C-alpha cells in the first residue's frame, strides 16, 4: 500500500482551457513589455558598462542541467522531451496555503518584467542574460508563510523517462535536485522566478516552465523546472552540498576571496570567448550586486558560510 501519496487529479482539473490561454497571453504580454523596455533603452540596475548580453544561441545551447546529461550541449539536445504543460507545483511546510497548485494559477495576474543579470557559474564562466521574471517575494507571499518559515526549499521535477540524466548509472546525484534560500534572501528584490528568456517563453533547457534566479549566487543555486516549494525552519540540504560539503555550501554567494578546490573564483571567463582570448575578467564580490545584498550577511564569516 502506498502511504501519503497525493490523490491523482485528472489533468482537466489542474488546468482549464482558459488558464491555458491565459498562460499564452501572459507570455505575449511579457514579450510586448520587453520590446517596450528596449525601445526606451531603460538602464538596468547593477549592469556594468562592459556587460554585453550573451548571444541567445549560447544562453540556450550551453547549459548545466544534469537531469539531461552532464555535457553542456546535452540539455539543448534532450530537454525537448520534457512535458511542461500541465505543470503542478506542490507547496508545503510552514505556510497557510499549501497543496497542489497549477502553475498557471500561481502566476495568474502577475506580469513578468525584464531583468538583465550577470550569471556566474561556479565553474568560473559567466554570461549576461535577459531574463523575464516575477519577484520571488510576490510569488511566495501568496502562500502566506508563517513565522516559522525561516527558509524556503525548491525541488526540480523528477521524471527519468523524460530526463535521461536521472537514470544515468554514472551520476551520483540523489534526485530531485534540491536548493534553498533563507527567507530574507528569497524576499530580496533581486530574487526572481524566471518564466521567460529573450522576450520569449523560457526554453526547456533553461528550466521551463519556471526557474529561480538569484544573480549574486553561483548558478547552481538557481534551481530549474521547479515542482515543489517547501517552507521550513531548518536550513535545507542542497544537492551539491549533499554531494561534496567541503566544496559547496548552502549560501554559495559569488566570492572571489573564497577559492574552490577545482576552480579559482578570483576571475571568470565571460562567454562567448574565442580561441585566443578567454575574455577573462575579475570576479566581483556578490557577482557585482554587493550594494543590493551584502547587508543580508552582515556579521557573518563568509569564508565559513561559503
Amino acid at each position, binding site marked *: 500500500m502506498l502511504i501519503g501519496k497525493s490523490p491523482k487529479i485528472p489533468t482537466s482539473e489542474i488546468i482549464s482551457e482558459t488558464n491555458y490561454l491565459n498562460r499564452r497571453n501572459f507570455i505575449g504580454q511579457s514579450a510586448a513589455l520587453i520590446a517596450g523596455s528596449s525601445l526606451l533603452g531603460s538602464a538596468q540596475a547593477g549592469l556594468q558598462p562592459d556587460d554585453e548580453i550573451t548571444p541567445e544561441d549560447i544562453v540556450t545551447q550551453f547549459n548545466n542541467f544534469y537531469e539531461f546529461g552532464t555535457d553542456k550541449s546535452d540539455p539543448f539536445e534532450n530537454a525537448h522531451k520534457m512535458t511542461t504543460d500541465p505543470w503542478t507545483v506542490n507547496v508545503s511546510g510552514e505556510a497557510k496555503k499549501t497543496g497542489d497548485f497549477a502553475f498557471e494559477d500561481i502566476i495568474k495576474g502577475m506580469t513578468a518584467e525584464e531583468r538583465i543579470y550577470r550569471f556566474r557559474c561556479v565553474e568560473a564562466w559567466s554570461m549576461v542574460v535577459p531574463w523575464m521574471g516575477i519577484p520571488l517575494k510576490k510569488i511566495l507571499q501568496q502562500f502566506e508563510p508563517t513565522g516559522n518559515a525561516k527558509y524556503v526549499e525548491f525541488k526540480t521535477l523528477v521524471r527519468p523517462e523524460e530526463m535521461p540524466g536521472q537514470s544515468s548509472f554514472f551520476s551520483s546525484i540523489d534526485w530531485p535536485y534540491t536548493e534553498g534560500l533563507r527567507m530574507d534572501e528569497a524576499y530580496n528584490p533581486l530574487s526572481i522566478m524566471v518564466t521567460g528568456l529573450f522576450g520569449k517563453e523560457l526554453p526547456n533547457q533553461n528550466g521551463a516552465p519556471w526557474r529561480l534566479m538569484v544573480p549574486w549566487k553561483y548558478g547552481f543555486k538557481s534551481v530549474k523546472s521547479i515542482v515543489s516549494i517547501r517552507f521550513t525552519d531548518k536550513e535545507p540540504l542542497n544537492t551539491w552540498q549533499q554531494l561534496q560539503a567541503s566544496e559547496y555550501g548552502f549560501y554559495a554567494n559569488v566570492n572571489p576571496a573564497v577559492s574552490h578546490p*577545482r576552480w*579559482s573564483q578570483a576571475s571568470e571567463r565571460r562567454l562567448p570567448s574565442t580561441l585566443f582570448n578567454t575574455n577573462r575578467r575579475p570576479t566581483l564580490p556578490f557577482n557585482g550586486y554587493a550594494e543590493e545584498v551584502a547587508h543580508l550577511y552582515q556579521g557573518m564569516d563568509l569564508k565559513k558560510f561559503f
Partner: protein
Amino acid sequence: MAQKRPISVLKIALAFLASAPLAWLSYLIVLEVAQPTSGLGPDPAEGLLHYLGEWSMIMLLVAFSVTPLRRIFKQPLLVRSRRMMGLFAFSYVVLHLLVYVVLYVELSMQLLLEGFVERTYITAGIGAFFGLLAMAVTSTKGWRRRLGQNWLRLHKVIYLVVPLALLHLIWLRKDGFGDIALYIIWFAILLGERGYQVRKSRKAATV
C-alpha cells in the same frame, strides 16, 4: 650497428589511427577560426583543453596496452610500436598542457602557480606529466643503452603516471563518471594481466 628494419604496415596503421583525433581537431579548429563558437563551442579554450585531455588519457592507456596485447596475440611486431605509442600519448599530453598554459590561463604566472599549488587535480596532472617527460626523454636507443637495467626501473614510472592521470580526471569532474569508469576498468584489466604474468614467472623461477 643494428640492422635497419623495414617499417611494418602495422606500425604505419597504428600511427595513422593515433593521429586521427588530431586530424579531426584540426578540422574543428579551422571551423572555429572561420566562425567563432562553431567548431569548439562558446568556450573554445576549454573545449580544446578537454578534447586533448580526454585523448591523452586514452592514448596513455593504449600505450600501456601494447605489452599485454603482444603477449595475448603472440605478436612480437607490436613491441616495435610501443615506443611510438608512448610518444603519441606524450604528444597529446604536451598539447593539452600547452593549451592550458597558453590559451586557458593565457600565460598568467599568478594563475599558473595558484593552479599548481591549490588545485590538487592540477598537481596530480603535473606529476603525471613529469613522469611521462622522463620516459619520453629516455626513450631513445642511446639512453636505453646508457641506463642499462635502470632504464626498465625508470620506465616503471608508468605505474604511477596512469593513476595520477586518472586522479587528475576524477578530481576535476563534478558528476557523470561514465568515461572515467571505463578508463579505470581498462587500467584494472591491464594491471591484472601484469600481476598474472609476474606470478607466473615467479612460479616458473621456483620450480
